[in-house]
């Protein structure tokens, strides 16, 4: 009888529950932040572009009239490299990035999400510096560009 009590106590383990993740909080980020600085004194540089788009597609990431010092561009989930074209009123610059990506699971109910990492600059007409190879919601600067 004592053995049976011990046996069925084990059933209680079936009710052990685990914490469900928050789908929105745990989602991966696909955003790279390109921040502009003055090449003379490294102060924030506010710029206005006509357009920022991806070179081989019609994906456009910026058409604002606002002057900004930080531009957010999205990584391509279909590819592991991407080239952005920064079109100014008189000139064009390019920024080519490489990265790793993985489709990972938060939970069954949240569905999978792309996670990006190991960011690198594989070519650019800008004078640049890679600040962070990590792509995460907590990162607000990945690449510094000096003009």
């Amino acid at each position, binding site marked *: 009888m004592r*053995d*049976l009590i*011990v*046996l069925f106590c*084990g*059933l209680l*383990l*079936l009710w*052990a529950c685990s914490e469900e993740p928050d789908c929105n909080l745990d989602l991966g980020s*696909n955003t790279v932040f390109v921040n502009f600085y003055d090449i003379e004194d490294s102060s924030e540089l506010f710029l206005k572009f006509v357009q920022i788009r*991806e070179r081989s*597609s019609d*994906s*456009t*990431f910026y058409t604002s009239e606002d002057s900004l010092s930080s531009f957010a*561009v*999205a*990584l*391509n*989930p*279909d590819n592991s490299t991407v080239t952005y074209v920064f079109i100014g009123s008189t000139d064009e610059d390019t920024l080519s990035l490489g990265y790793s*990506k*993985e*489709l*990972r*699971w938060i939970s*069954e*109910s949240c*569905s*999978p999400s*792309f996670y990006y990492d190991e960011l690198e600059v594989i070519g650019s007409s800008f004078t640049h510096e890679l600040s962070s190879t990590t792509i995460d919601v907590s990162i607000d600067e990945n690449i510094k560009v000096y003009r």
Partner: protein
Amino acid sequence: MSWSQELKKDYKPSEILFAADIIDLGKTFFTDETRLEFHSKIDFHQFYLTGEFGVDKFKLGGDNYTYTSEGSFFRIGPQVNLMPYNLHRSSIFFGLMYARSSFNDQINYDQSDAGWGGTTIDYKNDNMSARWFEANVGINVKIAGPVYLGYTVRFKFSKALTGNGELFPYEIPGYGEADKGSRFGFNYYLIYKLRFRNKPVPKRPIRRAEEPENVPRPEKS
């Protein structure tokens, strides 16, 4: 106090246990998943050599994806019976195991990342494998004749996964969620014990008071 008797060592096997996880059997019969897990063990004195085998086949689906996974796993390792004196041959055991799984998975995923519009992505991982170790503790209790019920609680650790591409697997057969470095597991078994040799249950040692030494005897008058 001292133990008057030690457990007599008899390493010749006397029984083989065959067990099936009844929770997994229920999932297989009553859902569209296939989850089967069996184990067998043979005794050597108060130790067991245990082998386990299982198969997993399941499908997940959400608003923007369909995922399937299929594979098998095995575990092998020694266990020690911590209750060798039980007259019903019920047991509480502790064991260590090496485990290995081979599996494959695939996903059809509709992504709609900002800036890129929507595309459908198909990923497939063939021939993935994983290994891990387990410490387990469990109990087998006699129900009637050669039929026992039992459970095993497992701590799975030191996982290594190889062979995956850009799709990270949801689950490793026999292990659980693939992104976790360690996991707890629980199995509830229906067990058939096949005895092929009569091995008497050893008697529990009895504590007996030692005779005091160097105590002077009373002299005869």
